[in-house]
């Protein structure tokens, strides 16, 4: 098992300035501390939709890499997204899921299917061809560069330890100024 912070730091070393990144909930707070950028897309409006926003961005901006940093509870709310992503198959789309088995932002309760659900297996069964699962940080660090350099869609499940319930100030990432900054940065790039 890995720590989310370590995974995000390893990932950030391979994320370019021009890449669009969509992190969710607790991951969003950790990510913006590691890689602050106006091209972090933080406002998803409803739980589970980050990968759908990302798919729209990947279709709308095929010139840019789109990296979704999803949660396991979030993905469970929108499993059909994996089928849609496989069908559309955008080559610039990279979907990471931090699997910690809990709804960290909502009290740390366990997700249904914890210990049983196989997210990588679900992604493969949905038709996504490039699927990986990591539970060892060293192996993840060795392979992440090549994964991001190759064509999407890519699905990666990161097995991480739960951090416990997280109290965060969501007004920081959901405010209109965040969306305006993203819009401006994307239009300028």
């Amino acid at each position: 098992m890995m720590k989310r912070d370590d995974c995000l730091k390893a990932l950030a070393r391979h994320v370019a300035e021009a890449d669009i990144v969509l992190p969710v909930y607790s991951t969003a707070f950790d990510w913006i501390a590691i890689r602050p950028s106006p091209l972090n897309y933080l406002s998803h409006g409803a739980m589970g939709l980050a990968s759908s926003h990302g798919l729209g961005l990947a279709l709308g901006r095929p010139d840019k890499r789109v990296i979704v940093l999803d949660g396991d509870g979030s993905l469970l709310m929108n499993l059909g997204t994996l089928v849609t992503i496989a069908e559309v198959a955008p080559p610039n789309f990279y979907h990471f899921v931090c699997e910690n088995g809990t709804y960290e932002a909502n009290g740390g309760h366990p997700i249904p299917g914890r210990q049983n659900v196989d997210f990588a297996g679900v992604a493969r069964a949905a038709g996504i061809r490039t699927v990986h699962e990591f539970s060892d940080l060293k192996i993840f660090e060795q392979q992440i560069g090549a994964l991001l350099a190759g064509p999407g869609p890519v699905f990666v499940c990161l097995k991480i330890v739960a951090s416990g319930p997280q109290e965060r100030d969501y007004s920081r990432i959901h405010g209109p100024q965040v969306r305006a900054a993203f819009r401006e940065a994307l239009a300028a790039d």
Partner: protein
Amino acid sequence: MQVGASRESDRASLLGGSIIREIKASKIEFVVSVPDITTSEGLLRPLAQASNPRLIRICKEDEGVGICAGLAYSGRRSLLLIQQTGMLDSINAIRGVAVEYALPICMMVGLLEKEPGVPPRQSKRYGVRIVEPILDAMGIAYHEIEEESDVAKIKPAIDAAYTDSRPVVLLIGRRPS
């Protein structure tokens, strides 16, 4: 009197080709859809056979709200073609993404089981009758598209949604031919 009204409504028409013409005139590049029986043959089928606008088939309607949001940020116009049952299922996504974030999410919504010629609010079907009051409560603009003369509302409605950055719903009240 009711019979006469019914015959009149039977004679009225709505052409899928006219709606598609307006969709293209509105510079819609992507149609994002879960099949809807009202618009299945007259709209979705011909749209699926064309390459422009590009059809994106989705599993559930709230996915489409997110996809259309991402496209809007990218400066690309899209239309979410769904049934009112799917719209009702996606209320939270529409609330958060379209209304609270003030994004131009344009929805074309087939009204399942609406009686032709009967205004949605006067429908005998609960699932039809509640649609416009819900949109009113959410503060979302909508337009009824039931007759051929209504088709002219489509482009101004979509243009206004993008100009003002707000959602709009186009309610398809009968099966386009």
